[in-house]
């Protein structure tokens, strides 16, 4: 009896440190934000306003602009970086002279701080002095200002994000490829399948669990990629490169609009939790399938 009590005490005593921080910095803030998203504070007094804060977004042009950018950004960065990651992994799956170096070349952006990456790409895109400008001037193309133009700025950041992320996802595909058995390939070779056929009919379907895992990881990451905006564009020009998380940051810490920041945070949480639910429903099933 005494021993049982002691085990019980140990259990909770061991969980306590994690639980304290889990509640303090994950659950309490989530609930706090949800409540705040239904209130409005005016001259130190807080009123319950129902859905008003949410409804106000309906006619908020900047909000829709930011959401549109975020969707474009995620829908461009995720598939392109995944496709590149898979090609890199297929290319490096066999050992050859220099394959180790190539692997490092593709991977190193993953360990560099995103602020430094933003700087590097700032240097690439800078008009006149920048790498791209200097390169294009060799062909007589005069200076273009990618980050200063509302048409191109988002795509400039998308290219940077792909460059940063692809090599990171490559390693998961490399791991996935290593788990595939060699025998399957040998038997298909005997059947006379060419390399595209063996990829599309065998490799790719067998890599499905890896692809789904990377898809979740890449999508969640893409929503979090905003550090570059602080350095490169500040979300501009005219919000053309602004993304949801950076917009939350601006709303809270530049415009000090707490209610709106709370609503935006809730929207962000709903997106993240939907991805999580998708993962639980689809990914778990696929893994059992395997």
């Amino acid at each position, binding site marked *: 009896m005494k021993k049982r009590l002691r085990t*019980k005490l*140990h259990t909770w005593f061991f*969980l306590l*440190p*994690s*639980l*304290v*921080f*889990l509640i*303090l*910095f*994950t659950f309490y*803030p989530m609930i*706090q*934000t949800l409540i705040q998203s239904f209130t409005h504070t005016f001259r130190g007094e807080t009123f319950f306003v129902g859905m008003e804060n949410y409804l106000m977004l309906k006619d908020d042009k900047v909000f829709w602009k930011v959401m549109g950018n975020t969707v474009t950004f995620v829908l461009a960065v995720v598939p392109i970086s995944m496709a*590149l990651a898979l*090609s*890199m992994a297929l*290319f490096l799956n066999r050992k050859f002279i220099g394959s180790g170096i190539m*692997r*490092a*070349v*593709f991977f190193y952006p993953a*360990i*560099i*701080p*995103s*602020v*430094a990456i933003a*700087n*590097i*790409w*700032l*240097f*690439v895109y800078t008009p*006149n*002095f920048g*790498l791209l400008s*200097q390169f294009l001037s060799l062909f007589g193309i005069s200076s273009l200002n990618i980050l200063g133009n509302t048409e191109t700025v988002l795509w400039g950041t998308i290219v940077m994000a792909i*460059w940063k992320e692809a*090599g990171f996802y490559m390693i998961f595909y490399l791991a996935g490829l290593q788990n595939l058995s060699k025998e399957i390939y040998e038997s298909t070779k005997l059947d006379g399948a060419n*390399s595209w056929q063996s990829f599309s009919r065998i490799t790719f379907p067998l890599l499905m669990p890896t692809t789904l*895992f990377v898809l979740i*990881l890449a999508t*969640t990451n893409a929503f*979090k990629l*905003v*550090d570059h905006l*602080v*350095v490169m564009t500040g979300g501009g020009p005219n919000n053309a490169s602004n993304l949801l998380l950076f917009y*939350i940051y601006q709303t809270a810490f530049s415009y000090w609009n707490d209610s709106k*920041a*709370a609503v935006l*945070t809730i929207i*962000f*949480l709903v997106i*993240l*939790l939907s*991805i*999580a639910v998708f993962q639980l429903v689809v990914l778990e099933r696929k893994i059992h399938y395997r």
Partner: protein
Amino acid sequence: MKLMRLSMYVLGALWLVPFIWVFLTSFQPRETIGSGLFQFTYTLDNYTSAWSGAPFLQYYLNTTIIVLGILSVQLFTATLAAYVFAKMEFKGKEILFVLFLVQLMVPNEALIVPNFQIISDFSLIDTKLAVMMPYFMTALGVFLLRQQFKSIPAELEEAARIDGCGPLRIITKIYLPLSVPTYVAFSLVSVSTHWNNFLWPLIVTNSEKNRPITVGLSLFSGSYETGAQFAVLTAATIIVVAPLLLAFLIFQRQFMNSFMQTGIK
């Protein structure tokens, strides 16, 4: 197939060129910047200017303290919780486990606004503790270690228990030594994640004393906009990137394996 291989080398070049170009630019005399792609006069002036332009040494020190602070608390909290989830039975275990799962889905980035409020309620704004605290609990660490602890046979623990060891001793004598690779993998991932962290420390720090290197670099970039200082900024970027890059080049395999392991679970 040949075409595929060729295009991969082109891709490799695209991955390498921006960094090499920044590296070379950082050694160019300021006056020659922008007057052509390749130059062969080199100088260390940009580095001396960058180094004296911002307290990078202090920033490095801050980042090191923050990163190691986070890691040591994480190892402590995650080890204890992982042991409970791996080896103990109690009511509500599944529900609690799902609650831990939520932290994996809701990254701290999503909660910067309310967490800023909490940190300022504690009067911790502009402290290193403020940068560290939201990361003291790590669901990732708990899951990784739980998986690892589960694979350790219960007989070992039984034997130790018969010898009169309590759970804390069992953890330090049996589970810790048998889980070193998992600890190494998690530590590498934690350190590189928090070394690179930017948005949260940007919000909660505002002095040289507490600012990590990433925030320091962004402020330095903000104060240099014109072309003449371009070269100094490239030097500052290299100063910030160099240690991580060197560590990566030396422990390449370990780095990639760690990320793979923590990703795949």
